[in-house]
């Protein structure tokens, strides 16, 4: 394990590298208001971040990442286009694996740019890849935008699409919804009984709690509409499965997705964005013919990342977490900006892991 001072020096070196490439250095507080993070990530964040509190400010979290405060800072004071870099500690609760660090240094590079998203994606990827040069890592890439486009294009009700969109980053629930909407899993008997009942409230349970009778009635109406909605076709489910199973080098993945787009034109624009990104990566000197692409990459670990996603892994050290990760998080800026979205893409490096793998200068 490299010494702390060495890791700090390596972090400073990486940040200076990004600064020299035109990024503005920014700092953020270590204590972050818990409310914003809870609002974004829900209760799950409590399993990943340390929560503390005082009687005046209420709950605070030890910064689990820089993305949220940097986006907030940019939205409050910044003007696009902007490029930022930072270095500092992040804190992650580790209750299931004592070998994973609960405090480590992160160095980041973030781009806020309304123009040329493909070029910005390629810029972030190649800057991160450049900083990792010589470490012999495997890059994994994906694009959550393609799955999102596929969901939008399904021949089904707006309610079903909204439910699927909400669970894009929760593969298990997403799958359960698809199975139900396609009739692969039967309607639960309790649901059938409810919809068949003349008076669903006949049992006469007393009304308690904040959720009102009107809300319950509204949901029953929604369930009736849902029961009347035709099942997703076998063909559409097959196409979704085909998209999710795309896993090959980027040029082949692109061809494969273009084939799927013939039967599912809704993903065409997303697929062409992938093509534009591949060109932009190539123009930056990335050997795209060797770059892995996996359509479901990042779904369970990168909530709010809604386009390009990537990670760098030490294949000889499967015990280590990814050395770098990143992607496009327009959805995050939309939620934080309450409608005022800014296209944003960024990535983070872990200097401690880089040194452990023999990097640094």
């Amino acid at each position, binding site marked *: 394990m490299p010494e702390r001072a060495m890791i700090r020096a390596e972090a400073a070196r990486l940040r200076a590298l990004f600064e020299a490439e035109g990024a503005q250095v920014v700092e953020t507080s270590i204590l972050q208001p818990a409310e914003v993070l*809870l609002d974004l990530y*829900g*209760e*799950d964040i*409590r*399993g990943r971040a340390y929560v503390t509190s005082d009687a005046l400010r209420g709950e605070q979290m030890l910064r689990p990442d820089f993305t949220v405060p940097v986006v907030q800072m940019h939205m409050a004071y910044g003007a696009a286009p902007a490029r930022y870099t930072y270095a500092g500690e992040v804190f992650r609760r580790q*209750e*299931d*694996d*004592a070998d994973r660090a609960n405090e480590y240094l992160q160095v980041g590079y973030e781009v806020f740019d309304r123009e040329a998203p493909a070029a910005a994606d390629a810029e972030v990827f190649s800057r991160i890849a450049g900083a990792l040069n010589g470490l012999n890592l495997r890059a994994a890439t994906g694009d959550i935008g393609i799955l999102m486009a596929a969901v939008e294009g399904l021949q089904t009700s707006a309610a079903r699409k909204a*439910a699927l969109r*909400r*669970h894009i980053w*929760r*593969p*298990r*629930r*997403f799958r*359960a919804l698809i199975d*139900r909407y396609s009739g692969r899993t039967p309607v*639960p008997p*309790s*649901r059938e009984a*409810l919809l068949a009942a003349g008076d*669903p*409230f006949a*049992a006469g*349970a*007393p*009304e*308690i*709690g*904040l*959720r009102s*009778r009107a*809300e*319950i009635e*509204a*949901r*029953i109406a*929604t*369930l009736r509409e849902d029961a009347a909605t035709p099942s997703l076709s076998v063909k559409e489910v097959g196409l979704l499965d085909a998209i999710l199973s795309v896993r090959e080098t980027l040029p082949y993945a692109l061809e494969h997705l273009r084939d799927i787009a013939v039967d599912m034109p809704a993903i065409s624009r997303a697929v062409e964005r992938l093509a534009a990104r591949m060109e932009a990566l190539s123009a930056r000197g990335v050997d795209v013919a060797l770059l892995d692409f996996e359509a479901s990459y990042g779904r369970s670990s990168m909530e709010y990342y809604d386009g390009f996603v990537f990670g760098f892994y030490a294949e000889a050290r499967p015990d280590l977490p990814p050395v770098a990760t990143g992607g496009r998080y327009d959805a995050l800026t939309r939620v934080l900006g309450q409608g005022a979205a800014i296209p944003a893409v960024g990535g983070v490096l872990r200097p401690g892991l880089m040194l452990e793998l023999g990097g640094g200068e």
Partner: protein
Amino acid sequence: MSVKLGVPSKGRLMEKTFEWFGERGITLSRTGSDREYAGAVEGIGNVELVLLSAGEIPRELAAGRIHLGVTGTDLIREKLGQWEQQVEELAELGFGHADLIIAVPACWVDVDTLDDLDAVAAAFRAKHGFRLRIATKYHRLVREFLRDQGVADYQLVDSQGATEGTVKNETAEAVADITSTGDTLRANHLKILSDGLMLKSQATLFRSRRTTGDESERRTVKELCRLLRVD
């Protein structure tokens, strides 16, 4: 040094534990006044009885301050991360049965499964502007269960007692708690989700993996386990 055996300090759980040990020839008893938490062990030498709140026994086992302890599986799993590495489960004692479940108001006729709960949570948040509240003292177990099941848009609110009353008091919309018969839930107009069973718990004898202990302590633990027929 003597071997320390941690046992719940009051109520049925203590009495049943004393009975279970008694049936195996080890007599546990409280000594001193009714209010004093001191005890005695007969039937084996060099074992000391430590009377503790059942909720503190996991922590004491993990710290190695007691060698053996009786508590519920629910408390071990809630309080200890990677619990298997900190304690060894020696025997289920056959009492103190309780299920950790999720319950919602019985008047929610549209909710029977986690899938329903998740959909209702989304609608509730849109309507009320905050996430649906689930009252519990089992924060870790509930959060992990709901994450694995892909339920979103809820929040956990802490409730250390009378959890079943939180819905009527409008401090929560649902509860996650342990129940043995379900009577208290029914009396409070709540019903259990059909797929909301998180854990089946019962009183269990655990051995700490953290005690450093000398040879004589190890021999005593071994001998006690032999007498209890849990080796």
